[in-house]
Protein backbone atom coordinates (compact mmCIF):
# COMPACT_ATOMS: atom_id res chain seq x y z
CA UNK A 1 0.00 0.00 0.00
CA UNK A 2 0.91 3.67 -0.27
CA UNK A 3 0.82 5.66 2.94
CA UNK A 4 1.39 9.41 2.95
CA UNK A 5 2.89 10.62 6.22
CA UNK A 6 3.95 14.22 6.77
CA UNK A 7 3.74 14.87 3.03
CA UNK A 8 5.96 11.94 2.02
CA UNK A 9 4.48 8.94 0.24
CA UNK A 10 5.78 5.60 1.49
CA UNK A 11 5.28 2.29 -0.25
CA UNK A 12 4.96 -0.33 2.47
CA UNK A 13 3.88 -3.96 2.88
CA UNK A 14 1.19 -4.52 5.49
CA UNK A 15 -1.01 -7.39 6.61
CA UNK A 16 -4.70 -6.37 6.27
CA UNK A 17 -4.96 -6.42 10.08
CA UNK A 18 -2.07 -3.99 10.57
CA UNK A 19 -3.05 -0.93 12.58
CA UNK A 20 -2.18 2.53 11.32
CA UNK A 21 -0.08 3.16 14.44
CA UNK A 22 2.04 0.07 13.79
CA UNK A 23 2.49 0.96 10.11
CA UNK A 24 3.67 4.44 11.07
CA UNK A 25 6.11 3.16 13.69
CA UNK A 26 7.38 -0.06 12.17
CA UNK A 27 7.09 0.36 8.40
CA UNK A 28 7.52 4.12 8.01
CA UNK A 29 9.91 4.27 10.95
CA UNK A 30 8.49 7.29 12.75
CA UNK A 31 8.35 6.35 16.42
CA UNK A 32 7.09 9.62 17.87
CA UNK A 33 3.53 8.23 17.76
CA UNK A 34 3.18 6.03 20.83
CA UNK A 35 1.35 2.78 21.46
CA UNK A 36 -0.56 2.89 24.73
CA UNK A 37 -3.72 0.94 25.37
CA UNK A 38 -4.67 -0.24 21.87
CA UNK A 39 -8.31 0.21 22.90
CA UNK A 40 -8.88 3.80 21.84
CA UNK A 41 -8.86 5.12 25.40
CA UNK A 42 -5.47 6.67 26.15
CA UNK A 43 -4.81 8.92 23.13
CA UNK A 44 -1.02 8.32 23.01
CA UNK A 45 -1.37 7.16 19.38
CA UNK A 46 -3.14 10.34 18.22
CA UNK A 47 -2.29 11.44 14.68
CA UNK A 48 -4.02 13.78 12.25
CA UNK A 49 -5.81 12.12 9.32
CA UNK A 50 -7.12 14.44 6.61
CA UNK A 51 -7.07 17.36 9.02
CA UNK A 52 -8.76 15.68 11.99
CA UNK A 53 -7.20 14.12 15.07
CA UNK A 54 -7.68 10.37 15.18
CA UNK A 55 -6.53 7.55 17.43
CA UNK A 56 -4.33 5.55 15.07
CA UNK A 57 -4.77 2.32 17.06
CA UNK A 58 -8.39 2.28 15.95
CA UNK A 59 -7.71 2.62 12.23
CA UNK A 60 -6.57 -0.13 9.89
CA UNK A 61 -3.50 0.98 7.93
CA UNK A 62 -5.21 0.08 4.65
CA UNK A 63 -8.06 2.41 5.56
CA UNK A 64 -5.62 5.35 5.52
CA UNK A 65 -4.51 4.76 1.92
CA UNK A 66 -5.13 7.97 -0.01
CA UNK A 67 -5.34 10.05 3.17
CA UNK A 68 -2.88 12.65 4.42
CA UNK A 69 -1.48 11.50 7.77
CA UNK A 70 0.40 13.93 10.01
CA UNK A 71 2.36 12.84 13.04
CA UNK A 72 4.13 14.57 15.89
CA UNK A 73 7.30 14.68 13.75
CA UNK A 74 5.59 17.28 11.52
CA UNK A 75 5.40 19.93 14.27
CA UNK A 76 8.92 21.20 14.88
CA UNK A 77 10.92 22.89 12.13
CA UNK A 78 14.36 21.50 12.78
CA UNK A 79 15.35 22.74 16.23
CA UNK A 80 12.57 25.32 16.25
CA UNK A 81 9.68 24.07 18.33
CA UNK A 82 6.10 24.57 17.19
CA UNK A 83 4.36 27.16 19.44
CA UNK A 84 2.27 24.40 21.04
CA UNK A 85 5.44 22.42 21.81
CA UNK A 86 7.12 25.55 23.18
CA UNK A 87 4.15 26.20 25.47
CA UNK A 88 4.30 22.64 26.85
CA UNK A 89 8.07 23.10 27.38
CA UNK A 90 7.61 26.44 29.15
CA UNK A 91 4.79 25.22 31.41
CA UNK A 92 6.33 21.81 32.25
CA UNK A 93 3.33 20.23 30.49
CA UNK A 94 4.89 16.77 30.58
CA UNK A 95 7.03 14.59 32.79
CA UNK A 96 7.75 11.16 31.29
CA UNK A 97 6.52 12.33 27.89
CA UNK A 98 4.63 9.21 26.92
CA UNK A 99 1.30 10.97 26.40
CA UNK A 100 2.93 14.06 24.92
CA UNK A 101 2.62 13.37 21.15
CA UNK A 102 -1.11 12.86 21.56
CA UNK A 103 -1.51 15.82 23.90
CA UNK A 104 0.33 18.12 21.49
CA UNK A 105 -1.68 17.18 18.41
CA UNK A 106 -4.96 17.40 20.34
CA UNK A 107 -3.96 20.79 21.77
CA UNK A 108 -2.96 22.00 18.31
CA UNK A 109 -6.38 21.05 16.90
CA UNK A 110 -8.09 22.91 19.74
CA UNK A 111 -6.11 26.14 19.50
CA UNK A 112 -6.45 26.20 15.71
CA UNK A 113 -10.25 25.78 15.88
CA UNK A 114 -10.97 27.72 19.09
CA UNK A 115 -8.97 30.97 19.33
CA UNK A 116 -9.67 31.74 22.99
CA UNK A 117 -10.54 28.46 24.72
CA UNK A 118 -11.89 28.43 28.26
CA UNK A 119 -10.52 25.93 30.76
CA UNK A 120 -13.70 23.91 30.17
CA UNK A 121 -12.94 23.85 26.43
CA UNK A 122 -9.42 22.66 27.19
CA UNK A 123 -10.53 19.93 29.58
CA UNK A 124 -13.13 18.80 27.08
CA UNK A 125 -10.55 18.73 24.27
CA UNK A 126 -8.08 16.56 26.15
CA UNK A 127 -10.64 14.19 27.65
CA UNK A 128 -9.45 11.48 25.28
CA UNK A 129 -5.80 11.82 26.32
CA UNK A 130 -4.62 10.20 29.51
CA UNK A 131 -1.56 11.47 31.41
CA UNK A 132 -0.42 9.49 34.44
CA UNK A 133 2.27 11.96 35.59
CA UNK A 134 1.24 15.58 35.70
CA UNK A 135 -2.20 15.70 37.24
CA UNK A 136 -3.20 17.74 34.17
CA UNK A 137 -2.81 21.19 35.73
CA UNK A 138 0.40 21.97 33.86
CA UNK A 139 -1.07 20.55 30.67
CA UNK A 140 -4.09 22.86 30.91
CA UNK A 141 -1.74 25.78 31.60
CA UNK A 142 0.34 24.82 28.55
CA UNK A 143 -2.70 24.66 26.27
CA UNK A 144 -3.87 28.02 27.63
CA UNK A 145 -0.46 29.50 26.85
CA UNK A 146 -0.40 27.88 23.39
CA UNK A 147 -3.76 29.45 22.58
CA UNK A 148 -2.42 32.90 23.52
CA UNK A 149 0.71 32.49 21.41
Amino acid at each position, binding site marked *: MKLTVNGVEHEIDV*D*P*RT*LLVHAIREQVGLTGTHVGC*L*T*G*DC*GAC*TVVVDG*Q*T*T*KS*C*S*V*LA*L*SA*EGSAVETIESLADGDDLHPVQQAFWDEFGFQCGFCLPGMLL*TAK*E*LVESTPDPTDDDILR*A*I*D*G*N*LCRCTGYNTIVAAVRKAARS
Partner: protein
Amino acid sequence: MRYTRPADVDGVTAALADGDAVVVGGGTMVVPEMTHGRVRPSAVVDLAKAGLAGIARDGDGWVIGAMTTYTELARSNVPLLATAARGITGGPQIRNRGTVGGSASYANPSSDVPAVLVALGARMRLARRGGAREVPAAEFFAGAFRTAREPDEVLTAITVPDTAAAPGYVKFKLVEGSWPIVTAAALAGPTIRVVLGGAAAAPVVVELERASWRARLRSEVDRLLTEPWDDVLAPGHYRARIAPVIAARAVAGALEEA
Protein backbone atom coordinates in the same frame (compact mmCIF):
# COMPACT_ATOMS: atom_id res chain seq x y z
CA MET B 1 -8.30 -11.75 6.19
CA ARG B 2 -9.69 -10.13 3.05
CA TYR B 3 -9.99 -6.34 3.06
CA THR B 4 -12.13 -4.35 0.65
CA ARG B 5 -13.01 -0.68 0.54
CA PRO B 6 -15.84 -0.38 -2.00
CA ALA B 7 -16.52 2.92 -3.74
CA ASP B 8 -20.33 2.71 -3.44
CA VAL B 9 -23.17 0.88 -1.69
CA ASP B 10 -23.50 -1.69 -4.49
CA GLY B 11 -19.87 -2.61 -3.93
CA VAL B 12 -20.52 -2.93 -0.19
CA THR B 13 -23.57 -5.16 -0.58
CA ALA B 14 -21.74 -7.34 -3.11
CA ALA B 15 -18.86 -7.75 -0.65
CA LEU B 16 -21.33 -8.65 2.13
CA ALA B 17 -23.34 -11.14 0.07
CA ASP B 18 -21.54 -14.18 1.51
CA GLY B 19 -22.53 -13.07 5.01
CA ASP B 20 -19.13 -13.67 6.60
CA ALA B 21 -17.65 -10.15 6.51
CA VAL B 22 -17.41 -7.62 9.31
CA VAL B 23 -18.37 -4.05 8.42
CA VAL B 24 -15.97 -1.33 9.56
CA GLY B 25 -17.28 2.21 9.77
CA GLY B 26 -15.08 4.56 11.80
CA GLY B 27 -13.48 1.52 13.41
CA THR B 28 -13.41 2.94 16.94
CA MET B 29 -15.12 -0.16 18.37
CA VAL B 30 -14.49 -3.00 15.95
CA VAL B 31 -10.80 -2.36 15.23
CA PRO B 32 -9.79 -2.60 18.94
CA GLU B 33 -12.04 -5.68 19.20
CA MET B 34 -10.04 -7.22 16.34
CA THR B 35 -6.73 -6.19 17.95
CA HIS B 36 -7.68 -7.96 21.16
CA GLY B 37 -8.91 -11.05 19.33
CA ARG B 38 -12.55 -10.75 20.37
CA VAL B 39 -13.62 -10.31 16.74
CA ARG B 40 -11.81 -12.52 14.20
CA PRO B 41 -13.27 -11.77 10.80
CA SER B 42 -12.34 -13.63 7.65
CA ALA B 43 -13.19 -10.49 5.70
CA VAL B 44 -13.55 -6.79 6.42
CA VAL B 45 -15.62 -4.35 4.38
CA ASP B 46 -14.54 -0.76 5.01
CA LEU B 47 -17.25 1.87 4.42
CA ALA B 48 -14.82 4.81 4.33
CA LYS B 49 -15.19 5.46 0.59
CA ALA B 50 -18.78 4.25 0.07
CA GLY B 51 -20.27 7.73 0.09
CA LEU B 52 -22.37 7.25 3.23
CA ALA B 53 -21.37 10.36 5.21
CA GLY B 54 -23.35 13.54 5.53
CA ILE B 55 -26.61 15.02 6.78
CA ALA B 56 -29.32 16.17 4.37
CA ARG B 57 -32.85 17.52 4.63
CA ASP B 58 -35.55 15.45 2.97
CA GLY B 59 -39.14 16.66 3.13
CA ASP B 60 -40.15 16.78 6.78
CA GLY B 61 -37.01 15.35 8.25
CA TRP B 62 -33.34 14.52 8.17
CA VAL B 63 -31.45 11.84 6.32
CA ILE B 64 -28.25 11.02 8.18
CA GLY B 65 -25.70 8.89 6.37
CA ALA B 66 -24.48 5.93 8.39
CA MET B 67 -20.88 7.19 8.18
CA THR B 68 -21.71 10.62 9.60
CA THR B 69 -19.31 11.27 12.47
CA TYR B 70 -20.15 12.57 15.93
CA THR B 71 -18.22 15.74 15.08
CA GLU B 72 -20.52 16.38 12.10
CA LEU B 73 -23.61 15.57 14.16
CA ALA B 74 -22.48 17.86 16.96
CA ARG B 75 -22.41 20.77 14.48
CA SER B 76 -25.91 19.94 13.17
CA ASN B 77 -29.37 20.94 14.37
CA VAL B 78 -30.76 17.43 14.63
CA PRO B 79 -32.58 17.45 17.98
CA LEU B 80 -31.28 15.16 20.76
CA LEU B 81 -28.74 13.55 18.42
CA ALA B 82 -26.59 16.71 18.19
CA THR B 83 -26.67 17.03 22.00
CA ALA B 84 -25.73 13.39 22.50
CA ALA B 85 -22.93 13.64 19.91
CA ARG B 86 -21.33 16.56 21.76
CA GLY B 87 -21.16 14.45 24.91
CA ILE B 88 -19.61 11.32 23.42
CA THR B 89 -16.75 10.03 25.56
CA GLY B 90 -13.21 9.52 24.28
CA GLY B 91 -12.16 12.95 23.12
CA PRO B 92 -12.30 14.77 19.79
CA GLN B 93 -10.30 11.95 18.21
CA ILE B 94 -13.20 9.55 18.83
CA ARG B 95 -15.85 12.10 17.85
CA ASN B 96 -13.93 12.79 14.62
CA ARG B 97 -13.89 9.11 13.72
CA GLY B 98 -16.83 7.37 15.41
CA THR B 99 -20.03 7.21 13.38
CA VAL B 100 -23.73 7.19 14.19
CA GLY B 101 -24.25 4.15 11.99
CA GLY B 102 -21.41 2.29 13.64
CA SER B 103 -22.73 2.97 17.11
CA ALA B 104 -26.24 1.92 16.09
CA SER B 105 -24.98 -1.28 14.48
CA TYR B 106 -22.78 -2.15 17.44
CA ALA B 107 -25.80 -1.68 19.75
CA ASN B 108 -23.90 -1.54 23.00
CA PRO B 109 -26.63 -1.10 25.65
CA SER B 110 -24.39 1.46 27.41
CA SER B 111 -24.18 3.83 24.46
CA ASP B 112 -25.97 7.08 23.69
CA VAL B 113 -27.19 6.48 20.15
CA PRO B 114 -29.81 3.68 20.40
CA ALA B 115 -32.13 5.36 22.92
CA VAL B 116 -31.87 8.71 21.12
CA LEU B 117 -32.87 7.15 17.79
CA VAL B 118 -35.82 5.37 19.39
CA ALA B 119 -36.96 8.60 21.06
CA LEU B 120 -36.83 10.41 17.72
CA GLY B 121 -38.85 7.73 15.94
CA ALA B 122 -35.95 7.23 13.55
CA ARG B 123 -36.00 4.66 10.77
CA MET B 124 -33.01 2.58 9.81
CA ARG B 125 -32.28 2.06 6.11
CA LEU B 126 -30.69 -1.29 5.37
CA ALA B 127 -29.34 -2.42 2.01
CA ARG B 128 -28.44 -5.87 0.73
CA ARG B 129 -27.56 -7.09 -2.74
CA GLY B 130 -30.61 -6.44 -4.89
CA GLY B 131 -32.77 -4.90 -2.18
CA ALA B 132 -33.34 -2.43 0.60
CA ARG B 133 -35.67 -2.09 3.56
CA GLU B 134 -36.44 0.26 6.42
CA VAL B 135 -36.82 -0.78 10.03
CA PRO B 136 -38.12 1.46 12.84
CA ALA B 137 -35.38 2.12 15.40
CA ALA B 138 -37.57 0.58 18.13
CA GLU B 139 -37.47 -2.75 16.24
CA PHE B 140 -33.86 -2.40 15.04
CA PHE B 141 -32.41 -2.59 18.56
CA ALA B 142 -33.19 -6.21 19.36
CA GLY B 143 -31.03 -6.59 22.47
CA ALA B 144 -27.51 -6.26 23.82
CA PHE B 145 -25.15 -6.04 20.82
CA ARG B 146 -27.99 -7.39 18.63
CA THR B 147 -29.87 -5.59 15.89
CA ALA B 148 -32.33 -6.48 13.13
CA ARG B 149 -29.50 -6.17 10.60
CA GLU B 150 -28.75 -9.46 8.84
CA PRO B 151 -25.10 -10.41 8.16
CA ASP B 152 -25.46 -9.63 4.43
CA GLU B 153 -26.97 -6.19 5.10
CA VAL B 154 -25.42 -2.80 5.71
CA LEU B 155 -26.96 0.16 7.50
CA THR B 156 -26.77 2.97 4.94
CA ALA B 157 -28.73 5.82 6.53
CA ILE B 158 -30.97 6.84 9.39
CA THR B 159 -34.02 9.02 8.78
CA VAL B 160 -35.27 11.27 11.55
CA PRO B 161 -38.68 12.98 11.24
CA ASP B 162 -39.03 16.59 12.34
CA THR B 163 -40.70 17.04 15.68
CA ALA B 164 -42.43 19.99 17.31
CA ALA B 165 -41.81 18.47 20.74
CA ALA B 166 -39.16 19.97 23.01
CA PRO B 167 -36.04 17.87 23.60
CA GLY B 168 -34.26 17.06 26.83
CA TYR B 169 -31.20 14.87 27.19
CA VAL B 170 -29.39 13.67 30.29
CA LYS B 171 -26.45 11.30 30.42
CA PHE B 172 -25.26 9.94 33.72
CA LYS B 173 -21.76 8.53 34.18
CA LEU B 174 -19.46 8.44 37.17
CA VAL B 175 -16.11 9.26 35.53
CA GLU B 176 -15.27 11.31 32.45
CA GLY B 177 -13.87 8.41 30.44
CA SER B 178 -16.74 6.03 31.15
CA TRP B 179 -19.50 4.74 28.94
CA PRO B 180 -22.83 6.11 30.15
CA ILE B 181 -24.46 4.28 33.04
CA VAL B 182 -27.97 5.50 32.17
CA THR B 183 -29.15 7.99 29.56
CA ALA B 184 -32.57 9.54 29.08
CA ALA B 185 -33.82 11.16 25.87
CA ALA B 186 -37.09 13.05 26.35
CA LEU B 187 -39.47 14.71 23.91
CA ALA B 188 -42.20 16.85 25.46
CA GLY B 189 -45.14 17.53 23.15
CA PRO B 190 -48.88 17.04 23.76
CA THR B 191 -47.70 13.87 25.50
CA ILE B 192 -44.27 13.04 26.89
CA ARG B 193 -41.99 10.31 25.66
CA VAL B 194 -38.78 9.51 27.48
CA VAL B 195 -36.50 6.71 26.31
CA LEU B 196 -33.94 5.17 28.64
CA GLY B 197 -30.56 3.98 27.38
CA GLY B 198 -28.10 1.88 29.35
CA ALA B 199 -30.91 0.79 31.64
CA ALA B 200 -31.74 -2.45 29.83
CA ALA B 201 -30.37 -4.50 26.93
CA ALA B 202 -32.40 -2.41 24.50
CA PRO B 203 -33.90 1.10 24.83
CA VAL B 204 -36.92 1.37 27.16
CA VAL B 205 -39.76 3.61 25.98
CA VAL B 206 -41.83 5.37 28.63
CA GLU B 207 -44.96 7.26 27.47
CA LEU B 208 -46.56 9.70 29.91
CA GLU B 209 -49.37 12.24 30.05
CA ARG B 210 -48.22 15.81 30.46
CA ALA B 211 -50.44 16.52 33.45
CA SER B 212 -49.42 13.46 35.43
CA TRP B 213 -45.87 12.70 34.30
CA ARG B 214 -44.16 13.38 37.59
CA ALA B 215 -46.59 11.27 39.59
CA ARG B 216 -46.51 8.37 37.14
CA LEU B 217 -42.86 8.28 36.05
CA ARG B 218 -41.36 6.10 38.75
CA SER B 219 -44.06 3.42 38.64
CA GLU B 220 -43.93 3.33 34.83
CA VAL B 221 -40.14 2.92 34.81
CA ASP B 222 -40.39 0.22 37.48
CA ARG B 223 -43.07 -1.58 35.46
CA LEU B 224 -41.12 -1.48 32.18
CA LEU B 225 -37.62 -2.04 33.52
CA THR B 226 -38.02 -5.68 34.48
CA GLU B 227 -34.52 -6.77 33.44
CA PRO B 228 -32.06 -3.92 34.06
CA TRP B 229 -28.72 -4.07 32.25
CA ASP B 230 -25.88 -5.35 34.39
CA ASP B 231 -22.21 -5.04 33.45
CA VAL B 232 -18.80 -4.18 34.86
CA LEU B 233 -19.75 -0.48 35.02
CA ALA B 234 -22.79 -0.85 37.25
CA PRO B 235 -25.01 -3.62 38.60
CA GLY B 236 -28.60 -3.89 37.42
CA HIS B 237 -30.16 -2.89 40.73
CA TYR B 238 -28.17 0.36 40.67
CA ARG B 239 -29.28 1.17 37.15
CA ALA B 240 -32.91 0.40 38.06
CA ARG B 241 -32.60 2.71 41.06
CA ILE B 242 -31.27 5.71 39.17
CA ALA B 243 -33.19 5.26 35.90
CA PRO B 244 -36.33 7.14 37.06
CA VAL B 245 -34.19 9.98 38.44
CA ILE B 246 -32.32 10.41 35.15
CA ALA B 247 -35.60 10.15 33.23
CA ALA B 248 -37.19 12.84 35.42
CA ARG B 249 -34.25 15.19 34.85
CA ALA B 250 -34.54 14.74 31.08
CA VAL B 251 -38.28 15.42 31.11
CA ALA B 252 -37.83 18.48 33.34
CA GLY B 253 -35.15 19.73 30.92
CA ALA B 254 -37.46 19.24 27.95
CA LEU B 255 -40.31 21.09 29.66
CA GLU B 256 -37.99 24.02 30.39
CA GLU B 257 -37.14 24.13 26.67
CA ALA B 258 -40.83 24.06 25.70
